[in-house]
């Protein structure tokens, strides 16, 4: 089989926002033998089911729906004649001396093995499930992740339920709550385990407040009732200090549907299997400023790298990874992240930073993307190299729901052993926060802390 193995310059795994932007960028950097493998039937990934508007203000300077945004990205791909294979799942990946060997399955081409000189990982994320939360109870029909419910309503024209309770207030959940209410369902309440919602303030106002849906912080689902269709859930108060449900506070709420919007997990099963080093903090690959992973010639971008808040930033990151993959083909000797390069660490108040490494000579403006742990006002974001502050950024407010980006000259960081990003600020009493977000509602973000 290996004798006949198809060879391509760059394989892009995933046909969502990150993958489409990456493929287009590789082409624009002079590489034409690029193939996008998309496991779905049509391009756009999760954007296809995000029929609300608010996408593209940064990238296209206008407000688009998810499908419109996806259509523009795909048009850019087809204009360039870049190959796109639908329903093509890459299910094995192995680093070999000539590049990376991929096993791909699709109805069009059947089973094939492909040798790619560079690979861009853009597989997106999956939703955290009831099983992962270990919610006890029975196992009836009517328990869905928010994204699955969104698929049912928007792509299949099916109403998942009438009396709905939601756990978690990630942005997908908030958007789906509004969608259900709009379609005549009774969304009884949104419960959130943490004292901070993981949804954008703007979405809480537009999707819950405007529809009279209560948001109950510091509450969680502690039991499930019903053996055919869901009949009720038990909801308990949560102790803010221990983050555990308080025994004796459970109230029974009759409902036929429970939706879970409790976080997204970068879908790195393929990367893990191939031996890509992952960052336990971001749950994505460990990359340098070129988005190169621990495997030479393998790049990662979008939600598979870390969970984003805005699709516009996903596209931007995809482009950067695509350009870097193209550059790698021009100079394949480029060093993979090595132990003697700069390590980028999250400091006080920061949960993770991407990239986690810098190459020996980081060029140009380097974006450092991260999330803060809590709600902060009048904060200072400090970037230090080997303990010495090199740059500080002031912000009026920062919330965990928003991804933060600071950009600084690579030259400032070159040669340091460690770079740290930290936050200096007063804690905000979080429940009343009103982050004045001018950013559009987004689909590509949802991070609830367990």
């Amino acid at each position, binding site marked *: 089989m290996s004798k006949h193995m198809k060879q391509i310059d760059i394989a892009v795994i995933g046909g969502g926002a990150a993958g489409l932007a990456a493929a287009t960028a590789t082409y624009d950097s002079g590489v034409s033998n690029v193939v996008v493998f998309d496991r779905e039937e049509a391009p756009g990934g999760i954007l296809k089911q995000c029929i609300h508007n608010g996408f593209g203000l940064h990238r296209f300077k206008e407000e688009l729906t998810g499908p419109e945004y996806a259509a523009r990205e795909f048009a850019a791909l087809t204009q360039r004649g870049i190959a796109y294979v639908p329903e093509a799942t890459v299910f094995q990946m192995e680093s070999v001396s000539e590049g990376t060997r991929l096993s791909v399955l699709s109805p069009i081409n059947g089973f094939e093995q492909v040798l790619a000189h560079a690979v861009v990982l853009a597989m997106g994320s999956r939703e955290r499930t009831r099983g*992962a939360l270990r919610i006890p109870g029975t196992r009836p029909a009517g328990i869905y992740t928010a994204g699955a419910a969104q698929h049912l309503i928007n792509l299949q024209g099916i109403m998942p339920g009438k009396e709905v309770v939601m756990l978690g207030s990630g942005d997908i959940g908030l958007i789906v709550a509004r969608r259900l209410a709009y379609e005549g369902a009774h969304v009884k309440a949104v419960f959130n385990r943490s004292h901070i919602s993981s949804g954008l303030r703007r979405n809480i106002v537009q999707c819950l407040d405007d529809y009279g849906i209560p948001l109950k912080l510091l509450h969680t689902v502690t039991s499930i009732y019903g*053996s055919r269709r869901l009949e009720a859930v038990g909801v308990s108060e949560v102790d803010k200090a221990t983050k555990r449900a308080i025994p004796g506070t459970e109230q029974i709420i009759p409902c036929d549907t429970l939706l879970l919007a409790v976080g997204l997990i970068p879908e790195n099963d393929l990367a893990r299997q191939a031996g890509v080093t992952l960052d336990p903090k971001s749950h994505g690959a460990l990359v340098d400023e070129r988005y190169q992973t621990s495997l030479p010639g393998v790049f990662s971008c979008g939600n598979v790298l870390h969970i984003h808040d805005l699709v516009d930033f996903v596209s931007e990151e995809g482009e950067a990874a695509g350009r870097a993959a193209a550059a790698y083909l021009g100079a394949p000797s480029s060093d993979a992240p090595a132990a003697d390069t700069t390590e980028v660490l999250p400091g006080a108040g920061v949960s993770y930073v991407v990239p986690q490494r810098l190459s020996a000579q980081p060029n140009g403006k380097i974006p450092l993307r991260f999330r803060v742990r809590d709600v902060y006002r009048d904060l200072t974001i400090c970037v230090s190299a080997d303990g010495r502050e090199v740059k500080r950024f002031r912000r009026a407010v920062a919330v965990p729901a928003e991804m933060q980006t600071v950009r600084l000259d690579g030259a400032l960081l070159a040669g340091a052993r460690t770079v740290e990003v930290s936050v200096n600020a007063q804690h905000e009493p979080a429940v009343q926060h009103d982050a004045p977000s001018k950013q559009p509602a987004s689909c590509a973000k949802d991070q609830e802390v367990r």
Partner: protein
Amino acid sequence: MLDVCIIGAGIAGCACARELAAYDLDVMVVEAGYDVSCGTTRANSGIVHAGYDPQPDTLKARYNVLGSRLYPQLAQELGFSYSQCGSMVVAFSDEERPALEQLLKRGNANGVEGLRIIEDPELHQREPNLSPAAVAALWVPTGGIVNPYGACLAFAENAATNGVAFRFNTYVESVRPLEDGTWELSLCDLLAQDANASSKQPAGADRIVGQQPTPTDTVQARIVINAAGLESGRLNNQVSPHRIKITPRAGEYLLLDKAWGGAFTSTIFQVPTKAGKGVLVTPTTGSNVLIGPDAIARDTARELQTTGEGLAGVLEHARRTWEHIPVQDAITNFAGLRSSCLEEPDFHLGEALDAPGFYNIAGFDSPGLTSAPAVAQEYAARIADQLHAQKRPDFNPHRPAPLFFSQLTDEERARLAEKDPAWGRLICRCELVTEAQILAALRSPLPATTTDAVKWRTRAGMGRCQAGFCLPLVAELIARETGCEPWQVRKGWPGSELAVGLRGCLTDLPEVSMGEEAAR
């Protein structure tokens, strides 16, 4: 008039059906659930016990050892997942060593082969993740693991292709003897009943029992096999003065991600202590790790919920075996029910007292799964003899193993996907299940009709995303094959539809005729 009516399509009923299919007999299986293996067979530890545990000279000891010996060949003939991975009973202190000696003696008395006590270095060489506190273990080379659903389905499909009839969603309301020595069973069609049920009735499987199902028809049979699991006491007590009281005892489990599939190579039991029987940690045939069960008596036959305390208790006990259980990688939790007869804790087998022709397989808790094939072989021979039935020359004992894409070689994958695009279309990305596998389940001799049935047969939806991505696709395929709308597809039991209707079903917007609009 049927020759044999088997009540219950669990492992006991289906094994009997398969063995009886070898004879020239008219056999039907009646099952309240929507699929095979809807009761006690579905959720248990999936262990083929070697037979060192039951007291000598009990029915449990006898059929356990016989059944355990049958599994390797049956797995070959019928194509279900089984692995003789071995098991060990671990002592965590010197005080627990005498218990190992006792089990060794008992196992030898029961005829279990290859038993021996092992210590370090062998103990931790075999199982490096075993707690350092472990000092010794009874090594049981003939212990095995099986996919209980898979085995049950294999028996049932083989029976069906050899002519046994199956009726699902059919509850046996009563059994009564007729004057001519045969039996009449009153049946209730649960799907029809559910269609008539008004929405104010509570959903849930309790509706089956709680609502007093009205019989819709009857069947008559010369022989009845009562393999009704949790309902077996109720049916026995309708025909026999020797009453059997079945106490449902729940066991709760946690299932860990396949990433931990290699953490243990054999089934790890703990020495029973005063505090309780302990919990097991075992690999599964699906390459997950299973942890459980506890033992909690439940009030009704259908309380299948897990509880926060129960799961916490399971974890606490299991940490004796595996100190650092990666709880964060649990993908699901579930409960199963044992159909135990606590008053007379042995199996209840043979014809019920004063009820000739009414055969019980009752009180069939552990090691029931292991014992079922042996009981079935004896029952089939005895019943065939009683009815003067001959062996059928055309009986086919083989059932082809279902193909799993994840287990194929690359060459087989290429060959299949080239022939049939359905083999090239991946539906479940976590477990690598193709459309062809799902279609095979939907077109089986006993077709899957629900998403749970598809999940149990193909593993679609059983992985780490727990059907988040594949559920809508599976529902589309079921709808296409069964001729319903995707929203009407059921998860399992009648009343478990995935959705409430089409978009717009909850809004009362006035209907606008597009024709009129256009005409203006």
